């Protein structure tokens, strides 16, 4: 293997490792939110919406965590990985 090919493949491996790291952030956060919803189901008031006040229905922390993960993955992580894999 030539020096150029070795350098190129090292750069590709580094880029793909970083791409995996970026792409795993959103799913990790989503999984954390789902686990939280299972551990404390009373925090997800959509499951039992009767007699809940407005704020308890509007602000459900496990769902907010999942939402943050989904938005990050869809709108930030994916385009970022496209840019990462494009030659500078």
């Amino acid at each position: 293997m030539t020096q150029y090919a070795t350098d190129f493949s090292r750069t590709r491996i580094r880029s793909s490792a970083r791409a995996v790291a970026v792409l795993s952030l959103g799913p990790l956060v989503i999984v954390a939110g789902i686990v939280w919803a299972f551990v404390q189901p009373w925090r997800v008031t959509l499951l039992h919406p009767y007699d809940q006040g407005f704020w308890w229905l509007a602000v459900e922390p496990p769902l907010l965590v999942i939402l943050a993960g989904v938005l990050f993955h869809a709108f930030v992580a994916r385009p970022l990985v496209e840019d990462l894999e494009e030659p500078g």
Partner: protein
Amino acid sequence: MQPPAEHVHWLFATGVLFVGLLLLAEAIVGREVWGRRRWRAYLWPALVFGLGVLMWPVMVFYTNSTVHMLAHSAWAQTMMLAGAAELGLVSGKLKNEAWRLCVPLMLAVSGAAFLIHEANPWLYSRSAFVHHACGWILLLGALFPLGAAFKPRSWVYAGGYAIVIVAISIALFSSRDVAPVFGHLDPSAGVQHR
């Protein structure tokens, strides 16, 4: 119609979590790749600025004490300053890299405000614990963006800063108005909520 304080903490925690994710991603790919799309470079500074703006209603409506109001207004001001400074640097309107010091200033002021406005000891209640924990995480965590201001390419400083912000969001998500911490709840704190 005013939300309970814990709900406000959770809403801010969501915003802070998103900022933390953006910072983590930036730390992983590096500033050069992060800045390849212009809009992306504006994301977290704009969010920090926006969170600073949203801190003003908190200051106005949650007036438990004078020190609470002062703490919230100090956060609002330093968050807006840090966000605006980063926006200025990203847009090229600010040239001096010393403006990056606004971020560690924001963390240090926020940490000090958390510690000063919490009158109760660590194990008084969950809320007291969260305030102490956030205060120290922010105060010590300010060293990471301080280092990053001088060594912007350092992964340790950029990653450390991102992890500090994610840790703050976790602490804020664990905040409750009245709840025990490690089995401790002072009787004077009131009756435990759900």
